[in-house]
């Protein structure tokens, strides 16, 4: 069993805390990291990936501080950065051979693993083609393959499905679910449906602080009674609702306009109906609308 304990983690840049006193314990399974831009998700992931050192606090892997077992720890992590540019003049195979060498894999073992992973991500037939000629989604798949080269125990994925089409996203989710049994997978994304479909637990971050961690059921139950649907054809009421409440969705129909609202307080409209919360409601409740990129 893998165990990653993040204890009182703070990362400061001058007077600003990018992460503030975060404490989480992670065990095998997929964890979704959810938060708006600038919330501190990438900073947290970079600290877990040993790219930046915490200002205070520590990260413990299986009982040992990761900086006391730096090389050993790097041998068990797989990291996919948010913006990932590959070398245009490398083929998918030669790029993976390079990463395998960085990860310390022996040549024979590496070549076997590379062929296997190229099949998994559906790039085996184009393995010798220059990556510069790949589409964005194909490049992303090369990135995903490199993560898995060393059979990592901790996988850190920063916006891994950005640029993937729905079919590729489904394939990727299935892959993550299949390998998550004996791994800790930390997945940062704006795509709520990715988190909804594969994450065991969701960690919500805002302004550098962890505001919630729990299973979907726990997080959604916390939203019970806070989600409303209102159908109206009164434009004045519509304008009033939009100015007073967080509107998750607004759909104009032929006979009426339907609004989905999240609110901590009871809604004083007779036509308001309490609804079952969805994950996008949670996002809207805690974060701002402009940060909802895709649901």
């Amino acid at each position: 069993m893998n165990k990653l304990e993040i204890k009182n983690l703070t990362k400061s840049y001058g007077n600003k805390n990018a992460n503030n006193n975060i404490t989480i314990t992670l065990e095998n399974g997929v964890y979704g990291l959810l938060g708006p831009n600038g919330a501190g998700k990438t900073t947290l992931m970079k600290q877990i990936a040993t790219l930046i050192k915490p200002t205070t606090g520590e990260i413990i892997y299986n009982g040992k501080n990761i900086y006391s077992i730096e090389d050993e720890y790097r041998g068990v992590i797989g990291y996919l950065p948010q913006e990932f540019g590959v070398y245009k003049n490398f083929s998918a195979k030669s790029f993976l051979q390079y990463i395998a060498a960085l990860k310390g894999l022996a040549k024979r073992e590496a070549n076997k693993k590379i062929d296997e992973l190229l099949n998994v991500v559906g790039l085996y037939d184009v393995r010798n083609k220059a990556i510069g000629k790949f589409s964005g989604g194909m490049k992303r798949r090369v990135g995903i393959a490199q993560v898995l080269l060393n059979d990592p125990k901790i996988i850190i994925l920063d916006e891994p499905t950005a640029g993937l089409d729905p079919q590729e996203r489904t394939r990727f989710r299935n892959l993550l679910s299949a390998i998550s049994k004996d791994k800790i997978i930390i997945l940062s994304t704006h795509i709520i449906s990715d988190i909804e479909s594969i994450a065991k637990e969701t960690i919500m971050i805002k302004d550098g602080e962890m505001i919630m961690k729990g299973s979907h059921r726990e997080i959604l139950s916390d939203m019970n009674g806070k989600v409303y649907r209102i159908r109206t054809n009164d434009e004045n009421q519509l304008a009033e609702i939009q100015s007073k409440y967080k509107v998750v969705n607004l759909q104009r129909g032929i006979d009426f306009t339907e609004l989905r609202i999240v609110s901590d307080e009871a809604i004083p409209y007779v036509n308001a109906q309490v609804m079952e919360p969805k994950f996008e409601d949670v996002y809207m409740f805690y974060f701002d609308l402009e940060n909802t990129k895709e649901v």
Partner: protein
Amino acid sequence: MGQLIKSELRKMLFKKGVLIVWVVSLLFGTLLIHNGTVSEVYADVFFKSYGYTPIMGLVMFMILSGAYTLEYNSNMSDLINTTKNGKKKTVIAKGIGAGIAISIVNLSIVTVIYLDGLKKVHFKGLDIPLKNLWYFKGISSTLNVFEMMLIMIGTIIIASFFFAQLGLYLSSISKSASIPFILGGLIMGVPYILEAVLPSKFIVMTPLWGMISSQLIKHEVSLSIMIIQGTIFVAGCLIFPRLTYKAFIKENKR
């Protein structure tokens, strides 16, 4: 390590822009040597070998300037630094790879000039003393043409490693490839451009003259200067990679 060096060589050399400039510089190098007597041709070979160094510098810093900025701009530096061997071996692999790449480029250019001259004199007269060539007129050295060519090949290889480490360091501390390109070019090119202005005491100590060692022979520098030149090269090859390592593993480089 072999795979890492091979990959670094591929990253640096196999770029369209680099390959085009390199090939053009080789082609142009075949046009430099004039016909004449054997001694005139050899004098021209050494004269043009030094005269062609700006082109060498151009190809060299085209290769080196993007070596680290490429990693930073593509975010590959983050990926590399999370791997087991990345932090420790990337700087070494880049250093060796760049040294090999620059040596290949510089030697290929000088070899083209040598071969052009040698073909013109049907490979004759390699034992002619340097002092008999107009370019080395008045020197007391007993070296002959062949020996000078061999020495230059040796110093070009050593200096290529030095310039490689310098260029890599400049690239590692820069956000854009243009800065190491300009800075590196200036460091290399200062003695070439300002030869008439700068004191000879300074010029003889520059890495460019250490690389094109025929210049040191032509100006009859003392043994102590040659030792200082050697020390500069060795120190550069040891110090620059350490500074590069520090820059490469620094947090928030971008």
